[in-house]
């Protein structure tokens, strides 16, 4: 379990993320941030709130709606040795700039035989649950994790958001930092209780590749990430009343992936439920099941996966609720595997 130091100071996920960025920018002149509406607005999802005041427009750069150009410019500046952070406002917009992300940012290190490296961070907002429909509600976790060459991190709370951001900026490779809108603690999009946590004032890193066991249990392993960590924990609380103890694992980073923590847990529980807010097929949930099958097939008694059932995200509330795994769905899946 993650050791969280008691500090008495609680932050929202956005404040924690911003604190890490500000710290790194103070320490290192070469860190700067580019994105749409990141300066005066402070990021549509508060990802750069108040940074303009301290660092000015030269380092907190509003850029034209030209994602290919500015994300590609981040690649170039990173290869020149700087430490740019580029924000893709919604991950759904990757379509207009994917070449710079996956053919340049992600591959230049390998294609150059390690002669160049790309120490940049691509921050992006993910997730649905507020009826923003097909072009503004995806997570696309699996898409980014699938393509080799980028590290992919998905914080689920403020403590991790800060530690993962410090680690991301200091990393010598490109890191995609996917923050869930629902967890940020934005005034106009109320977050659940969980993501606001105690956060130390000082800098700290969370190493990539360490999943966190958020709740211990013996009956079933629930592997999840992002918003659904909180839904899984809520489901687990309800199940405990009925004597079912679910272990909840928060992946935290997809690349690198902590196979060991997941496999060890399934060896103990024998039952696996994967909860993902990305599309079901050819993605994250299948990957988790495959890894468990490869390493602990004999221990695996039962599997369920919950994910977006291969439909684009619909707009109307009853439609979106039907396709985005809810707390009750998770509870039901755990009951099914423990039957």
């Amino acid at each position, binding site marked *: 379990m993650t050791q969280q130091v008691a500090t008495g100071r609680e932050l929202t996920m956005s404040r924690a993320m911003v604190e890490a960025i500000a710290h790194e920018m103070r320490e290192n002149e070469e860190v700067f941030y580019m994105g749409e509406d990141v300066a005066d607005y402070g990021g549509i999802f508060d990802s750069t709130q108040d940074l303009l005041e301290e660092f000015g427009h030269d380092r907190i750069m*509003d850029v034209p*709606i030209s994602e290919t150009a500015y994300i590609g410019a981040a690649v170039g500046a990173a290869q020149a040795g700087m430490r740019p952070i580029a924000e893709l406002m919604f991950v759904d917009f990757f379509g207009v700039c994917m070449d710079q992300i996956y053919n340049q940012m992600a591959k230049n290190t390998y294609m150059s035989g390690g002669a160049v490296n790309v120490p940049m961070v691509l921050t992006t907002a993910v997730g649905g649950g507020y009826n923003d*429909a097909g072009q*503004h509600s995806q997570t696309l976790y699996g898409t980014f994790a699938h393509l080799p060459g980028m590290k992919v991190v998905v914080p689920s709370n403020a403590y991790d958001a800060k530690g993962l951001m410090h680690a991301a900026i200091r990393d010598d490779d490109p890191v995609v930092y996917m923050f869930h809108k629902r967890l940020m603690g934005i005034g106009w999009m109320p977050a659940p209780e969980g993501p606001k946590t105690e956060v130390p004032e000082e800098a700290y890193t969370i190493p990539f590749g360490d999943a966190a066991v958020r709740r211990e249990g013996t009956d079933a392993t629930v592997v999840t990430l992002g918003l659904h960590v909180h839904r899984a924990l809520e489901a687990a609380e309800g199940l405990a009343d009925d004597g079912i103890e679910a272990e909840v694992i928060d992946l935290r980073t997809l690349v690198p992936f902590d196979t060991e923590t997941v496999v060890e847990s399934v060896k103990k529980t024998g039952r696996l439920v994967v909860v993902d807010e990305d599309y079901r097929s050819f993605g994250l949930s299948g990957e988790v099941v495959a890894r468990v099958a490869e390493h602990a097939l004999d221990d695996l008694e039962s599997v369920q996966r919950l994910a977006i059932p291969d*439909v684009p995200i*619909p707009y*109307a*509330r009853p439609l979106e*609720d039907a396709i985005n795994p809810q707390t009750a769905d998770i509870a039901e*899946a755990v009951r099914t595997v423990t039957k």
Partner: protein
Amino acid sequence: MFLGKGEPGNAMVSVNTREEMYEAMVTARHYEERLQEEYLEGKQPAFDISAGPIPGELHLAAGHEAAAAGVCAHLRPEDTVTATHRPHHVAIAKGVDLERMTAEIFGRRTGLCKGKGGHMHLFDPDVNFACSGIIAQGSPPAVGAALAAKKRGTTDVAVSYLGEGAISQGGFLESLNLASVHDLPVVFVVEDNDWAISMPKARVTDVESGAQRAKGFDMPGVRVDYDDAVAVYEAARDAIERARAGNGPSLVEVQVHRRMGHFMGDAEGYRPTEDIERAKRLDSIERLAEDLRSEGVTDDELAEITDRAHQRVEAAIEWAKDQPEPDPDEAFDDVFVTPPRAQVVPDGGGDRGIVDAVDVPPGSDDDIGGEDR
């Protein structure tokens, strides 16, 4: 700017046409003001984007009406329009079914898109209208509609709407070139409201006018520098006639004004109060009303148009709110028009299980026996 037949502008635009534009504009304005009210229901005192009868983002176009009415007045149902994330005024001017559009915005089953699209993704093939929430990505499909018209030898045209923030996006610039090199009947209409969310124009482009983009692609580009439906009408006539005659694409930029926040819930902390006040002062609807009065249209006649427009809006909203919500299972329809034989519907471990998109007799070759595809 070419005004047609060598006559001074206003004389060329009949009072009747101006009244029609006025009605479209008043309808659009009232529509946005009423949607704002409906949207805020359930979101007060604490604003929660996911609450209330209209959830999700809502980008209203109050102050943009002249750019819609002045262009769409030249269009027929067969002509294609692609609009942006701020689409309602254009949809109204293009003749999109107001009741079904409203039902869509309220997320109802009888909406234009059965509740799947919402306010940024409205499709009405009856009048060839569509919109998209991704900046500048409506341009390539508009070029495609123009390509189809050219290949089929019709006189149909396409219009692609964009905000001034979109003029630096690849999808737009590539579309200008493709349209130009193939002489396609498409008109690009840039609505310049001075802002791209919080980013003022000067921060993100060095050109004074978006119309300058046309030069680099060897097509005509004009800018209507003030928010005047009649001036837009004239500029658009030139561009659309040129397209219909098979003489290729044009670009028209129109100065409009953003009378509301970028989206509902935008506190506009980045925007000087003076700019907000100015946008309200420079009202294209008031301007057109003045113009009509000077042509002898009485206040009573204007009020009659306004009443009719308001009633239409109220009726659409009332109808929409009466419509049923979709059933959860409908989320699984419409991924394809020819669905795969059996779709697995993992619904959270519930008992919905396999849904057969097409009835498959048990045991037949197509019966996959309840397994994943």
